[in-house]
């Protein structure tokens, strides 16, 4: 009897030691699988916004992801003004308005194509569509194209930093945290 309880105690003691070790090693495994610090640090890109032409889609790269930059024509801005929600998606730099968004479909992450004549985006993967402000016009994508964190700096745009204009977009639910 005495023996049995001693063995029982040893079993429990071993269980406790092994349990602590297991939890600790799971944590270490989780951390090893995390993105490296160097990957996270390389997350900033600066764009010179004076180089873009109206209604011509340019694809930049930020954190390995494509970023769409679309300078709006006066006519497009007028159209957007009719719908305040559209207007809020645009970024004003000087007197110009830009759509700057992640070029990844909010459905499953394919890259939509831009048609300058119809001023709309089509995601060929599952047929999703967006207008020139990146707002979704045809499902399956659940929402408009996401806008990356940005900060306006004169006529430059820093991607990866959260400026006041971006924070306002987040608050208004224009975009999700990308």
């Amino acid at each position, binding site marked *: 009897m005495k023996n049995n309880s001693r063995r029982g105690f040893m079993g429990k003691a071993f269980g406790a030691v092994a349990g602590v070790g297991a939890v600790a090693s799971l944590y270490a495994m989780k951390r090893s*699988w*995390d*993105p*490296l610090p160097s*990957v996270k640090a390389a*997350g900033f890109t600066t764009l010179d916004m004076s180089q873009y032409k109206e209604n011509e889609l340019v*694809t930049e*790269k930020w*954190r*390995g*992801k*494509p970023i769409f930059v679309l300078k709006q024509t006066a006519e497009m801005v007028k159209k957007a003004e009719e719908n305040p929600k559209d207007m809020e998606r645009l970024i004003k730099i000087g007197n110009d308005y830009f759509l700057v968004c992640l*070029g990844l479909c909010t*459905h*499953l*992450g*394919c*890259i939509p194509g831009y048609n300058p004549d119809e001023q709309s985006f089509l995601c*060929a*993967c*599952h*047929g999703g569509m967006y207008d020139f402000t990146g707002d979704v016009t045809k*499902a*399956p*994508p*659940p929402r408009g194209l996401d806008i990356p964190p940005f900060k306006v700096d004169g006529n430059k745009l820093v991607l990866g930093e959260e400026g006041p204009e971006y924070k306002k977009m987040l608050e208004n639910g224009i975009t*999700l*945290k*990308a």
Partner: protein
Amino acid sequence: MAHFTKAKNLHDWLNQRLAIDTLNRVLATEYWIPKNINFLWAMGMILAITFGLLLVSGIFLLMYYQPNIDLAFDSVNYTIMQEVGYGWLWRHVHGVAASVVFLIIYIHMFTGIYYGSYKNGREMIWISGMLLFVAFSAEAFSGYMLPWGQMSYWAGMVITNLFAGGSLHADGLVEWIRGDYVPAQAFLNRFFMLHVLLIPLAIIGLIGLHFGALRIPHVNNQDGEEIDFDAEAKKYLAGDKANSKVIRFMNDFLAKDMMVVGIFLILFFYLVFYHYDFAMDPVNFDPADGLKTPAHIYPEWYFLWSYEILRPFSTDVGLIAFAFAQVIFFLLPFLDKSPNAVPASRRGLFKYWFWAMLIDMIILTAMGKVPPEGVFSTIGLYAALTFIGLWIILPFITKFEKKV
């Protein structure tokens, strides 16, 4: 300690130390197989052999493959294909086997469903088999990443995005899985590790479990007859081979198994030498480009049916439907409420259910391949709904089945 005597020969020497005679008896000469099973029961052996082919060809590919985003594409498409002597052979064997193995798995699965081989004590065979199916799917997906072509990259993008869980927006989880914001070096390395080590280990373990699960309930037979294996084995050993319902695994049954395997291998190597391209997507011969999506993204043919179940719905509903399709087959032994473990043709409504399910999955597969437009989306939608509906009615139609 056991008593050792001076060995008469090598066989005796080994036998004293490893009991090889006992092993041979338990695993081969007195492992009993019912007589009345047809060639469809040889699929298990074909799968084991195909797995062996994948392992050997994989080892040779591993010697020249470079898990680096700048080198991977050329190491496969140039070094292995052009420079390495017979490198093309290993690649074609590996590629064709990866595709064909799923065809055989599906035949194996549907054979099991048709003959009710997942019922009445054989549940663990079915469940361990489904676990193998999942492991093979993960193995195929991780292997598909390695040549780092356009389809690799974008399949990696789309599939890992599924883990964001639609409206849950678990983007942190997706980035954690990738080890980067997009599929990049960390992603390639970890999928390389999964493909060559962790998942193969899991597969080997699961194959052990799958075989072990067979040991007590024994393999089912063509008539769903409940055989008393001990009594029949006794008859056989007493010399009454004609009246016994069972035969030895070795050499009796193995002869038939190997005959089927032989035919399979001829077809297999015909594909390897003359039609290897069916297992290779042309889009994957463009190097990965994170800034350009191919016009039309689709998975390999064996994932098309579950991909098509995801596609016609909005994101969240689609994800739920997709998750449903992934797990529902596991529950088959419990959703089929009928007491019968006999061929579908002798059962009630289940016989229509079986063919409806098979045809529906073929339609889903076909629709998953074509672009999601017009009438195809409509057919896809109805086929997806039919799939879900069939599973929902299964317990009801089998409940009222009379015992045969």
